[in-house]
């Protein structure tokens, strides 16, 4: 084994080219890490919107709340199912109406699709209260057009301030409260009494979905069996967290694919840079390599040594790139969620999976960039290399 200190000091001896190479690799690693952070952030936001202890009823085949409908009879029937938790003689169930409307942005950049969610007082008090907390003002009163808005929507749209009023569907919707749903997708929504929303948007007679608390998370299969067997209401039931995750699938895939294409594109440059640097290292160390071989170090030992050296460059790039990307760990960004076509606020999230993924990517670049120069090093003829 050729000592690693030999590689480290050889890199240090040509600081400038090594530094430039590391920066190039770091840039690609950072792009890659940011993509992963965005994808992880989207997943986390949407998955965090649901809980495995809850189940959501949708129309059979509906892929999102937007295209879902549940009749009021159906909602009543399923809420009474024994697998649904009860509290004080009432089913822990929140029938909700989900409507998307265009609201002008405050910054003048035109209208955005914003989700309005109609809710019931019982549904809120029994099911949503713990995760959707009113942090400013108060809850909207039943039978009025009062709304409360999520903290990510606060100040984003015209009228979306506490004490302000949003104009939509020939109505004024006064904002009486602001809620915090702990970074989930609810935070980008506007919540209002379900009956008022239904009237304003002509959606009476139906809910979009109904979310219930399971008596116990293990009761889900039993509930699903009941719903699947029922042919009257054409409904289906999913675990709430699974549902929200599947809604994020398209968006996560989009970010991942687009980002990966960008990262791969850049990685050609960085890999080529690493390769050029390593070729230069080999060329300027021909005599050293020949001497090592004469002393009895094998071809494969020399090969390995240069691959390790290339990996050192790429791992340094990974560290710098990840450090840079982690600075963006608290940045929030807004994107249209393809599942619901609404604007949703996500947060970049740097975690061990990002660090590991980015490092693997860097290792890959180091291997690809280092292999050919290392092969050249291993093939250097000893006699020519060792003489003056």
């Amino acid at each position: 084994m050729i000592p690693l200190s030999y590689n480290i000091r050889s890199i240090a001896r040509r600081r400038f080219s090594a530094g430039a190479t590391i920066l190039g690799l770091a840039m690609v690693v950072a792009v890659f890490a940011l993509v992963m952070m965005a994808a992880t952030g989207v997943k986390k936001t949407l998955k965090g919107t649901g809980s495995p202890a809850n189940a959501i009823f949708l129309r059979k085949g509906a892929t999102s709340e937007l295209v879902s409908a549940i009749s009021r009879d159906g909602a009543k029937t399923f809420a009474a199912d024994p697998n649904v938790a009860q509290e004080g003689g009432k089913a822990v169930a929140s029938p909700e109406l989900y409507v998307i409307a265009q609201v002008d942005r405050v910054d003048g950049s035109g209208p955005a699709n914003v989700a309005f969610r109609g809710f019931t007082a019982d549904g809120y008090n029994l099911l949503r209260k713990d995760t959707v907390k009113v942090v400013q003002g108060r809850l909207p009163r039943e039978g009025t057009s009062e709304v409360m808005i999520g903290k990510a929507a606060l100040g984003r749209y015209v009228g979306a301030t506490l004490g302000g009023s949003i104009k939509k569907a020939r109505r004024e919707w006064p904002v009486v409260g602001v809620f915090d749903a702990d970074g989930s997708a609810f935070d980008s929504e506007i919540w209002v009494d379900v009956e008022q929303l239904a009237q304003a948007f002509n959606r009476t007679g139906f809910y979009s979905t109904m979310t219930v608390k399971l008596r116990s998370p293990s009761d889900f299969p039993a509930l699903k069996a009941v719903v699947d067997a029922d042919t009257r209401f054409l409904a289906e039931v999913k675990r709430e967290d699974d549902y929200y995750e599947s809604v994020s699938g398209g968006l996560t895939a989009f970010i991942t694919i687009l980002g990966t294409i960008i990262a791969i594109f850049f990685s050609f440059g960085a890999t080529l840079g690493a390769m050029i640097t390593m070729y230069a290292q080999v060329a300027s160390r021909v005599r050293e390599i020949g001497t090592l071989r004469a002393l009895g170090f094998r071809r494969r030992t020399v090969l390995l040594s240069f691959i390790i050296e290339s990996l050192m460059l790429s791992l340094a790039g990974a560290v710098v790139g990840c450090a840079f990307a982690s600075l963006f760990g608290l940045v929030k960004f807004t994107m249209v969620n393809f599942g619901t076509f609404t604007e949703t606020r996500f947060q970049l999230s740097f975690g061990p999976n990002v660090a590991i993924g980015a490092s693997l990517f860097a290792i890959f670049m180091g291997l690809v960039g280092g292999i050919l120069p290392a092969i050249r090093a291993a093939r250097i003829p000893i006699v020519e290399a060792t003489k003056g």
Partner: protein
Amino acid sequence: MTTNGKSIVEIRNLRKVYTRDRQEVVVLDGINLDIAEGAFEALMGPSGSGKSTLLNLIAGIDAPTAGTLRVAGEDVSQLSEGQRAAWRARHIGFIFQFYNLLPVLSAEENVEMPLLLTSLSGAERKKRVHTALGLVGLSDRMDHTPKQLSGGQQQRVAIARALVADPTIIVADEPTGDLDRKSAEEVLQLLTTLNKTMGKTIVMVTHDAHAAEAATVQRRLDKGVLT
């Protein structure tokens, strides 16, 4: 000279031919040579006569075109690339004209390199390295890198590296070729000591008749033939 009559190098009908532009250049033409264990031989001859080529063949870093070559009891030309590397590590100590130390390593680390191919422990390696550097009179320069040493000192580090793993043969190609008179003298003195007191077999290529006098046997190579 402490030869015991046993040959450590046995060369029979050795040929080395280079083909360049479809033209054959015969560098060595039917060489026969025996070198006894414990000998200190000097190989002289005009430039281009094939001295280095012969030395490289003995040292197992080049392969012959024809003939047999037994060195340290092994038919070197029959060994695979990997086997030859292991064989060199075990049997050959190299001294080059331009020292060929690794520039980023200290004298101590340079001398330790051949020992990394043995199974010696770190402590054992250190002990041997210090002994070798003491022998060449550089105990106080262990932490110096080659750049911080004079040419003569670098060559002495290289000699320490060549002997540290206790090889069967030390090969030296123009070891004084790049040195001033005084440093050259020191190097020759060291080689003589290695040969006389430690019984090392040494094969040295040199241009310099004075340097050749340090050896116990002088041979001449001319136009590919030993005389």
